[in-house]
């Protein structure tokens, strides 16, 4: 599976025994980020399902993203849940904007254990 390199955004993929780690870098600032992200996420979901792996979204080093990107991320969270794929979001709580943006995603943390929010540095 190839990393994504689109404009100011790069998403590197690292495959481990248990998960695909997606490291977000740069900025997601496209007018319609779903045009790039949706097909990329579809491939990641397909591979994760085929390999019985989870997905980790690492935002610790991203500079910023726009609100249209947030919509894409929460749609990915929902799709992963529908496919029974565990998804974890990792962020940097020392950056105020990340703390405010990502803390709200706790609403997707359900009893099924398929979604987790992990501040960087937490076990």
């Amino acid at each position, binding site marked *: 599976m190839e990393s994504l390199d689109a404009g*100011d955004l790069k998403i590197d993929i690292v495959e481990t025994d248990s998960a695909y780690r997606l490291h977000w870098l740069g*900025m997601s*600032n496209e*007018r319609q980020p779903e045009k790039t992200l949706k097909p990329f996420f579809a491939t990641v979901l397909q591979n994760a399902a085929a390999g019985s792996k989870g997905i980790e979204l690492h935002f610790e080093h991203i500079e*910023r993203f*726009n*609100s*249209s990107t*947030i*919509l894409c991320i*929460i*749609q990915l*969270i*929902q799709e992963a849940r529908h496919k029974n794929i565990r998804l974890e979001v990792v962020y940097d709580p020392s*950056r*105020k*904007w990340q703390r*405010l*943006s990502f803390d*709200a*995603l706790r*609403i997707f943390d359900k009893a099924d254990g398929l979604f987790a929010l992990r501040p960087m540095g937490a076990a």
Partner: protein
Amino acid sequence: MSAALSLEVELQPEWRNVTRASEAVALLVLGTYGDDDLRDAIAMVSAELLENAIKYADPQKLVRLTIHDDAKVITVEVTNAVVKPEEVLRLAARLDWLRQHPDPAAAWVEALSLATAGTSTSERPGLGILRIAHEGGSRVDYNVSEPGTLTVRASMTKTPANE
């Protein structure tokens, strides 16, 4: 020594100018206040306001970004020529929806829920304005100063760290 940022710039309404302007703002805020969180907040607010303006603005007219700082409040304003008057009504409806909540954080959480609940696009509150209120810690309002000219304003109260 207290520093205060004052900026007024007119931009071509092109999408790539959102990032150019918000990056410039980020550098200026950091240079003025030396505060990373304030840099991120004002750059995000500028970008979201410019995105909204450029999506709906008259493509033949410039978009104006203004930032000013008085003793207590930093204000980011974006002014654009409106093509469709219903866009102003839509903005007013979004702000009304925001103010129905006890605070911007509650509105933000509900908006995220609605975004994934199969709600149609027209029924979803716009995330951009809510993000400005929640993540940007800003009060958002607007005015139509002359026929067809919309100004959207985000005002954030200064904290001891950046006064």
